[in-house]
């Protein structure tokens, strides 16, 4: 039977009022896939992520999660269907402790998942070491690990990562990529990530969409991703 995709986006228009940034975005993510969305600055990648989770309204088009239309739901209701959103710039809760930040992420499932805190600590040991430290005092890389750990606490079926490599040391970028690939392989976690960092794209993505001027303009396979020059041409000005 033809499987329902995990995420199906059709003709999505949206943005900050006035002229829409998104001009009819179409793409899909299958169950258990890691899909990258690449493109230059200002083509609407972050706007797309915010519109998917519901922080920005869509003016036209639809978003379906496992066949259920979600674009008419508020952000917290979409999250509760199992979408973990990791915003650009991390946006940890700065005056709360690392542990408290993680506990907020349980809201995605609406309950405490047994053993999940230990699993998250296993992926990101620094979050256990710094459990009682205020999140605002962590380094950028530590905050990124916290922002990812925070959504994993809710046991999501897919995560949206907005520029996870931004402002982070290369070794931490590789570490995060490894954990996402591992989680995907073990649990079938679906991942959509917006990225400009070639290493991270190549380390994580199984497929890739190219975005330009508010539209998806190309779809790349894993084999295409090995063509460094071609990839670079989509990202450079």
């Amino acid at each position, binding site marked *: 039977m033809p499987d329902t995709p995990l995420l199906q986006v059709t003709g999505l228009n949206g943005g900050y009022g006035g002229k829409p940034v998104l001009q009819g975005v179409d793409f899909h993510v299958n169950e258990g896939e890691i899909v990258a969305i690449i493109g230059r600055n200002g083509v609407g990648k972050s706007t797309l992520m915010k519109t998917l989770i519901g922080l920005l309204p869509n003016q036209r088009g639809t978003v379906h999660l496992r066949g259920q239309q979600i674009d008419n739901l508020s*952000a917290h209701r979409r999250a509760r269907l199992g979408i973990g*959103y990791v*915003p650009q710039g991390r946006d940890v809760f700065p005056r709360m402790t690392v542990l408290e930040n993680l506990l907020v992420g349980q*809201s995605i499932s609406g309950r405490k998942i047994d053993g999940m805190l230990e699993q998250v600590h296993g992926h990101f040991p620094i979050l256990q070491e710094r459990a009682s430290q*205020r999140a605002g005092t962590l380094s950028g890389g530590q905050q990124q690990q916290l922002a990812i750990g925070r959504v994993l606490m809710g046991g999501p079926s897919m995560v949206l990562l907005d520029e996870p490599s931004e402002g982070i040391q290369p070794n931490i970028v590789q570490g995060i990529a490894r954990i996402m690939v591992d989680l995907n392989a073990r649990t079938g976690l679906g991942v959509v990530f917006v990225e400009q960092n070639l290493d991270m794209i190549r380390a994580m993505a199984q497929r890739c969409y190219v975005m330009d001027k508010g539209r998806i303009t190309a779809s790349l396979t894993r084999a295409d991703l090995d063509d460094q020059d071609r990839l670079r041409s989509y990202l450079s000005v």
Partner: protein
Amino acid sequence: MVDSLNLVFSFLYQFGDAFAFLVLSACGLAVIFGMMGVINLAHGEFIMCGAYVSTRAAHAGVPMPLAILLGAACAGIAGMIVELLVIRRLYQRPLDTIVATWGISMIVTQGMLILLGPSMQGVGTPFGSFVVGGYSYSVYRIILMLSAVATLAVLWLMFTRTRFGLLSRATIQVPHVAEALGVNTNLVYSVTFGLGAALAGLAGGLYAPTMTLVPTMGASFMVEAFVTVVVGGADIFLGTAPAALILAVIKAGLTSWQGQLAGQIGLLIAVIIVIRILPRGISGKILRERG
């Protein structure tokens, strides 16, 4: 020796009394301002609501402590209704919330005047008094002081030890991310506004036996409430509580030295000085230094 001990006791009593009044009048306003950025000019009317409901209940034979809690609960429910009907539409427009809540305040005071007349019979202050060094002190005032401390303690536990506290702190700090993590932020705001209104109602219920019940009685709490919140800043524990401590020392000191009027003037001068030095209040200063 005995005389100076009496003086110390008298000052401590005045200080405790001022502290209790500042904390209880301010904490509802502080919760709503600190958590939601809404300046609630109808704060006094929620206090009045608590006072009227608890007094009515007491007249009807409900035991005093229960009557006070009932007043707080009714003010809280009224607060949630006001949040749903009015405040929710104005979250991005803080100045408009001032006008809207001011309007609600006037409608409610005038409406009460029409419906229930210019005053309502009180219940009288319970528990009588005790004498120290020739001066007589009210037992009920001591209960008010303990209530203020208990209120702060309960709020602290609520914000640091409960799921609601966790989610509400997340919601103040980065609202859109809290929402995107599955937190129903509208519900958090609604409950927070209701909590602030209930705290106002609690203050009204607690002070109802000590004052004349008139529809405009909320106004007599407003100066202290605003002075405390302005001096304290947005955080109730880092701000409101220490501000109330400092202001209570000023007020009690000036009152026992030069009388009530001097105490009030002292409060207003203190707030002017604080605004000059710490525009975001005590807690704004602490939070900025912590980074």
